[in-house]
């Protein structure tokens, strides 16, 4: 075993595929010599050169659109947008082009694209650089969406995302880049659509992903002190997602809390809750609870931001309300 940061996990996944397949390349704003806004592509410019690690103008629509066109012509682009918030500027190219061209052309066009989107609050970046907008993308048929929480999954999901023949949205959490976790000496692929049970438990199922995996694990330690044995599931893939692991766990614990950093209004957590309600209702002996950010833009001042974002105490309170 060795230790690796989340950013290194992402980078190593990209490097491995770039070494294997000359058609894989990465482009985006400042991904070259600068190494990316969060340092994820650090060193890749020197290793692969300007052809394959390419700086673009500040043109998010063109970044995604170029990814679509080049993928349609046989390349496997990895497009980085500097912040998930900027997805608004490239949204037509993701939603109306990348997600739909295959369908509308009856399968005549195949688009193996990875779009990397760093998201989340916690760094006083204010409302245009802190959002968690995964629900916008999980809503769109034609896209796959993944969201690793640690170096091992970051690596393994990146391999799967690049190898996939469909557009894959690869969401990264910007507070996790420097976090280190243990990885095997020989890193492994993580298939899309498979959750990871981070902690087994018997009394309540906490379903989460991304940064909130850590808040949920912390909450589970506090809950244990009160005799509540929580199971924590890291979804890792938001579409397709691992319905079997969720149902199996709900069938065991009969209580569910779903946690994300999104504002709760219209959140992806609502999709998980509704599927459990539709298909697993009689397994539940308490209401399905959701924890998320307050329904506001993300504020700048640290105290306000901490107040708006969900934390481990919110999760503890939500769980305890079911008992």
């Amino acid at each position: 075993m060795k230790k690796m940061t989340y950013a290194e996990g992402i980078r190593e996944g990209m490097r491995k595929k770039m070494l294997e397949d000359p058609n894989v390349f990465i482009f985006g704003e400042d991904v070259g010599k600068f190494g990316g806004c969060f340092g994820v592509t650090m060193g890749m410019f020197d290793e692969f050169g300007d052809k394959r690690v390419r700086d673009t103008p500040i043109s998010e629509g063109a970044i995604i659109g170029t990814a679509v066109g080049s993928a349609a012509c046989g390349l496997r682009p990895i497009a980085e947008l500097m912040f998930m918030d900027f997805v608004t500027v490239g949204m037509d190219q993701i939603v109306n082009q990348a997600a739909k061209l295959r369908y509308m052309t009856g399968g005549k066009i195949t688009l193996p694209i990875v779009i990397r989107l760093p998201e989340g609050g916690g760094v006083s970046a204010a409302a245009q650089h802190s959002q968690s907008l995964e629900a916008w993308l999980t809503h769109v048929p034609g896209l796959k969406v993944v969201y690793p929480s640690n170096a091992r999954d970051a690596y393994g999901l990146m391999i799967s995302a690049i190898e996939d023949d469909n557009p894959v949205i690869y969401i990264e959490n910007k507070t996790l880049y420097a976090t280190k976790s243990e990885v095997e000496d020989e890193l492994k692929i993580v298939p899309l659509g498979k959750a990871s049970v981070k902690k087994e438990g018997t009394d309540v199922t906490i379903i989460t992903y991304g940064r909130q995996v850590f808040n949920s694990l912390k909450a589970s330690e506090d809950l244990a002190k009160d005799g509540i044995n929580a199971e924590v599931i890291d979804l890792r893939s938001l579409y397709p997602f691992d319905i079997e692991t969720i149902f199996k766990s709900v069938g065991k614990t009969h209580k569910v809390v779903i946690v994300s950093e999104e504002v709760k209004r219209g959140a992806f957590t609502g999709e998980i809750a509704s599927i459990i309600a539709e298909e697993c209702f009689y397994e539940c002996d308490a209401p399905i609870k959701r924890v998320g950010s307050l329904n506001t833009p993300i504020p700048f001042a640290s105290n306000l931001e901490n107040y708006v974002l969900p934390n481990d105490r919110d999760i503890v309170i939500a769980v305890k309300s079911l008992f």
Partner: protein
Amino acid sequence: MCGSKNKIMMGGSILKITDAQLKSMYLTMLKIRKFETRAMDKFAEGKIPGFVHLYIGEEAVATGACANLREDDYITSTHRGHGHIIAKGGELNYMMAELFGKETGYGRGKGGSMHIADASKGILGANGIVGAGHNIAVGAGFAAQYKGTDQVCVCFFGDGSTNQSTFHESMNLASIWKLPVIFVCENNGYGISVSQKRHQAITDVSVRATAYNMPGVTVDGNDVFAVYEAVGEAVARARKGQGPSLIECKTYRWRGHFEGDPTVYRPEGELEAWKKKDPIPRLEKYLMENDIMTEDEIKTLNADVDKMIDDANEFADKSKIPALESALEDVYTDIVEEGRVR
């Protein structure tokens, strides 16, 4: 148009073009005109659902541009895409079937008129979002450059789309990376119902090329030779790695923005004036005056194309509507959602 056989004078230079190429261009223009006319009739009959945007009157642009392309070159198209697709070698049967919403159509009945693509012929798709093709064309040009081929991509778009941000983004990117993209603006004078003078403060879109340090020219879009020559020069530049060009072709759509558009925004006499500049009789005249085709040969070719259109119509008519399960396919290469209880 003037000049002796196979040597068409263009601005003092001689345009080299073979009889076979001339006949092929004429055939392409006829196919487009007759396909579109049939689509117009079938839409009126209720055989074609949804929106149909016809290319009648603009045939010389797609024809002249695509006559410079190889099968492995790329095009991106627009909501008014039938002409581009035919000129790039699209199959009439599969096109008509798609318009009819049949399972044998290019998109298996899931795209319709605005979303026909054939990757095997470099046709990267018509597109329902105005300006979306610009960026996709840049991607195709990037792929050609990345792989080290001499393929090029012709990006067709209307004057209306030149006010979208994608126009600026893609022209800039193609220029700084010297991508083999030929931006062909079909300036038909209108963005839907809004005339060019009301939607932008310039008369020649080509002047915008200056902002991207690329060549920009304006040609008579109803003169197939003028289009052929201008795009030909741009293609040659692009193949040599000298980067993109902007070619503006002034033309006019005879029909409304879509079938059913009452065109109340057109000044009286405008359509009639443009009909006098119909690109097809102009080419016919040239072919006959220069003894490239006789009147009889022209009649025979017209009859041949009529037959192709009849066949396409029959193919579309007799094809089955798509099976309901097919609605769940082609969303992904691998996942097929099961039909769910609603």
